[in-house]
């Protein structure tokens, strides 16, 4: 057991010093998730709106209430400025996407029947300007309509017709059937790609075990381990588990980073996510060792493994959504399919029974590959096998 632990520890030390490997296995999936998740994301990001309300008249409370309501919606985030010039500065600096300055005589103007006007400052993003404009215009047009109604119908009648201006429903997004729900199921684009690339790179992490064994066999260190009195099985297992630790680190970093930085909702059932990651890494290790036992050298192993993992990711829809429908069920022969669908089910919290069935199939894949790997392992580790 000590030999196992010693080998695991030193494998981890070695991996911690392989910066390029860490960048590829941890940095690259984070970048791909960001790029693909953002590219296919149809969610509108809230526009940050700086508001300075200088009005001290009768309408002040109504205006404040209006912006509070607006901020409660998904499209506007309100930041209160201390002066009109601060609003302008924030917009200029890009601190906010849009600025609104409400003049001090706004209530007076309205009460005297003049057209309601706010000073607005558009920012650099057109879609955010549109969202903010929609909110501002909804208020002003309602107020102007009220003024007109008062002037024509008299105060009492106008009050009957018009309600207080509200930010609700100022922006309505309709789904025409080709949005997120159609392509990515119940997950968002970033959730979909987070699951797909976590799985793909966990499988690559599994290849690290096979490469470590081949490297050590070729350099003679494995041979040296074999000539010492500790159990060779334990030291070999230590090398493999070292790669398993790398996969664990990979999974933790990807899940934590995407949760906090990309706002990916993983569904909160982290023990099930850990199980899926464990089974995927085990399947990857099994696949890597099996390929290495036939390939016999590092380059061939890397090439074959990359082709297989890349193909599995493609067939399971990890690169192009909707491909599953075109491949006639071939996606179900991939590890990625079962791992990704179970992860997505955990993310959305729907279909728990189905999720466990998918995890069961994934476990079966992992078990079969591990059994083959154990049988073929001597071909990888023994110099004379």
């Amino acid at each position: 057991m000590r030999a196992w632990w010693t080998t695991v520890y030193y494998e981890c030390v070695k991996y911690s010093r392989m910066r390029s490997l860490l960048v590829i296995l941890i940095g690259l999936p984070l970048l791909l998730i960001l790029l693909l998740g953002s590219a296919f994301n149809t969610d509108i990001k809230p526009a940050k709106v700086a508001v300075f309300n200088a009005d001290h008249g009768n309408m002040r409370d109504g205006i404040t209430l209006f912006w509070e309501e607006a901020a409660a919606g998904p499209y506007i985030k309100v930041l209160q400025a201390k002066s009109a010039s601060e609003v302008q500065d924030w917009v200029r600096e890009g601190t906010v996407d849009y600025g609104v300055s409400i003049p001090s005589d706004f209530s007076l103007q309205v009460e005297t029947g003049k057209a309601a006007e706010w000073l607005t400052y558009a920012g650099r993003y057109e879609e955010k300007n549109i969202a903010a404009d929609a909110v501002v215009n909804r208020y002003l047009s309602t107020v102007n309509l009220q003024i007109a109604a008062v002037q024509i119908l008299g105060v009492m009648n106008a009050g009957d017709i018009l309600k207080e201006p509200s930010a609700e429903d100022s922006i309505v997004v309709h789904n025409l059937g080709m949005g997120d729900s159609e392509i990515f199921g119940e997950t968002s684009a970033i959730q979909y790609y987070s699951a797909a690339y976590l799985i793909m790179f966990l499988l690559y992490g599994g290849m690290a075990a096979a490469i470590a064994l081949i490297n050590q066999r070729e350099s003679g260190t494995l041979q040296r381990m074999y000539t010492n009195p500790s159990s060779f099985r334990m030291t070999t297992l230590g090398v493999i588990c070292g790669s398993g630790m790398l996969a664990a680190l990979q999974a933790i970093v990807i899940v934590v980073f995407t949760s906090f930085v990309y706002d990916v909702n993983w569904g909160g059932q982290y023990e099930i996510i850990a199980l899926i990651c464990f089974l995927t890494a085990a399947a990857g290790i099994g696949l890597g060792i099996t390929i290495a036992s036939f390939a016999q050298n590092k380059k061939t192993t890397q090439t074959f493994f990359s082709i297989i993992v890349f193909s599995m990711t493609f067939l399971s829809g990890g690169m192009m959504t909707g491909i599953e429908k075109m491949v006639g069920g071939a996606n179900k022969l991939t590890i990625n399919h079962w791992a990704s669908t179970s992860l997505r089910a955990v993310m959305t919290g729907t279909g728990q029974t189905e999720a466990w069935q998918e995890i069961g199939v994934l476990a079966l894949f992992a078990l079969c590959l591990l059994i083959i790997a154990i049988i073929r392992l001597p071909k990888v580790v023994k110099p004379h096998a």
Partner: protein
Amino acid sequence: MSPRGYDFIDLFQASEKHTMGLSETKQGVEAEMSLVAFREVVKKYDTTITVNHLNFSIGEGEIFGLLGPNGAGKSTSIHMLSGLLAPSGGDILVDGYSIRKQPIEVKKRIGLVPQELAIYEMLTARENVTFFAKLYGLRGSLLRDRVDEALQFVGLLEKAKDKPSTFSGGMKRRLNIACAIMHRPKLIIMDEPTVGIDPQSRNHILESVRSLNKLGSTVIYTSHYMEEVEAICTRIGILDQGKLIACGTKDELKRQVGQGEKLIFEIDRNSVDMLREISEHPGMQQLDESDLGLKLTATVKESPSILQDLLFIIQKHGINLRKLTRVEPNLESLFLQMTGRTLRDE
């Protein structure tokens, strides 16, 4: 590694033997006398026999040189001895323990310096030695002391925190040795430890081998460099086609082959009678003439006894001797004569 350190190892090993009930487990009377004993060892790959009924012993404290052309069975024999390969037949005993029945006990007593640089580039020199030391079960202060000792022995203590990627080829070779000696093995197997390094590092390694031997370790040394084997080995075994074709000290090998030394006489004139008399001498193996008969090369069996006779014959015929050169046979020529090949033959 201090001599005091090796006094300690003797005590350590003695106590270990006692606790393991060595007298009950050791095999054979001869094993008590030799540290390593190959007994009818055979290694077959399908129909190919790589090692063919190999029999030889290595005594404690020897530096045993194992020579042979490529494919002679050297590496296979070393791999069987270190437990990397299982013999197809026969057995190898190390310190009385069978590699077949008690491989762990054998492995405890062996330190293998493989031909490859079996070190981790990503770990520092100290971490490399510490890793392998831990696999030998060393822990705590003993581990630290032994790691320092091994690094100091190979002259890398000051570079302990550096990674091998910053080392020269010779320094890597020395680290390769440090990883095999920190547990103070009784038997150190060195498989071509000086391949591809500069002369200075080679000398350092050869000195290390002598020092290890003086400190009590038995060494098995294989090399393609005859001069190294000649310089450090107390006994030499020559393998060819899986068989040990000769074994002994350098002088014993010379006697086995019957190859004598060469005496080169440079004279001022020649004489037919003198040549006849020299060639009829019973100790003469071969006589060659060159430089218009002014240079005679005599290959003789035992030069000390016949040199005087030959000088007398030359003087008797009134011929002046200008120069006399004595050339002893080297291992290269012995090897060539025994195997029909040079060591570097493919």
